[in-house]
């Protein structure tokens, strides 16, 4: 029975790699969107703060699966209409790329809120001191705001990462060969041979996610210690 898991072992490994890559790239994208979103939301200029508020409110009010299907299929539909209009062959959107973009866009809204809170937690005096030193906005951000902000943002980042890691499972619904999809394919593959190993494969998939969660917990624990040096 366990030999069967090993038979699908290399595929499960590839699925795991796809899951981790997807999660890391989505994290990177949402991190950047979050920083920009937080800066926009805190801006005194309404032309920046208003769209950012609309973005975070809309995204966080709609389920991630709905957004994923909405964006993926609408964009594919639009692309098909364009290629049809120009009499070109259809272009299939890559599920991995789509997954990164959609997850990045969704969790960018959550990161915007995390970073907004963290920006506000840095004492104003620090920014005034930086201004008094004649630092440019970029320098202030790089040298003063970012290093101090990270301490307040880390619990939120850790939380968002765990959520993104689990949300990647949804991308299998739009066709990515991640851990979940590999497990489901393995089930179909064994059922056609008359065996019912659904429980075993799904349990393996669950354990892989659990392992990833444990490793990330440990990693963030170390990061948290590093950014809290000088406090407590």
């Amino acid at each position, binding site marked *: 029975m366990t030999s069967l898991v090993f038979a699908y072992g290399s595929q499960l490994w590839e699925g795991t790699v796809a899951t981790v890559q997807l999660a890391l790239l989505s994290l990177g994208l949402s991190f950047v969107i979050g920083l920009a979103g937080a800066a926009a939301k805190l801006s005194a200029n309404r032309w920046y703060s208003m769209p950012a508020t609309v973005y975070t409110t*809309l995204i*966080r*009010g*709609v*389920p*991630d*699966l*709905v*957004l994923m*299907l*909405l964006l993926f*299929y*609408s964009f*594919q*539909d639009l692309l098909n209409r364009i290629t049809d209009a120009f009499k070109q062959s259809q272009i299939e959107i890559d599920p991995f790329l789509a997954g990164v973009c959609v997850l990045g866009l969704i969790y960018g809204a959550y990161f915007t809120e995390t970073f907004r809170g963290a920006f506000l937690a840095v004492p104003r005096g620090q920014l005034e001191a930086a201004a008094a030193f004649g630092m440019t906005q970029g320098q202030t951000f790089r040298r003063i705001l970012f290093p101090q902000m990270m301490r307040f943002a880390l619990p939120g980042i850790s939380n968002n990462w*765990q959520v993104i890691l*689990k*949300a*990647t*499972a*949804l991308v*299998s*619904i739009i066709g990515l060969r991640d851990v*979940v999809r590999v*497990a*489901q394919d393995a*089930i179909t593959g064994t059922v056609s041979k008359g065996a*019912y*190993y*659904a*429980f075993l494969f*799904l*349990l393996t*998939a*669950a354990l892989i*996610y*659990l392992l990833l*969660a*444990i490793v990330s917990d440990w990693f963030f624990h170390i990061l948290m210690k590093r950014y809290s040096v000088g406090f407590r």
Partner: protein
Amino acid sequence: MMDLIKEYWQQYLWGTEGRPSGMVVTLWLTILSVCLGFMLAIPLSLARVSTNPIISRLTLAYTYLFRGTPLYVQLLLIYTGIYSLHAVRATPLLNYFFRDAFRCTILSFTLNTGAYTTEIFAGAIRATSLGEIEAGRAFGMSTLTLYRRIILPSALRRALPAYSNEVILMLHATTLASTATIADILKVARNAASDYYLPFVAYGIAALLYLVVSFLLVWSFHLAERKWLAHLRPAIKRMG
């Protein structure tokens, strides 16, 4: 677009010909799993803060397992995984329970939200100020009375902001039921999208409906917080 709306609007909201679907099913899934999860979380959060390390660790194992794995995998494991076991099919009662998609979905949703809610409540119980407990003890309350009259009412109120977040996340998570053939809002949207080849309209309507329900939930929790957390509001705001 109008054709799609004309044909599907009833299914999006409450269904047709005695077959409920859409918003009604989504709300029913949410209410049922949130209520069952709440009932599960009350005793488990007490077990989680127990001074007995075995009880506390066992509860942690449960919450960690369910918070560390995706709900989608949990649903698949309960819906397809468990039913594939011969022992389950051979037992009439288990066979009856796990054969049905709705029951499996509710079970996995309840176990999942129960795990998150347990940690939220346990956190609030731990954060109860010592003065409240001392005051209760000074009145000669037994541990049971203390929990019933002082710790739980105080902790559940303070847990309200985090709990409202969890309820909204649960509403969003019910979309996974559509993968188990249950006719919630998203399932209707998927049918409509493939029927008319209008994914933007079909999923857009679904997104709008979820948005409306989310806002109503946020608003009602806001009212609940105003009522039950009035004692924790800053003094200046309270006067205004």
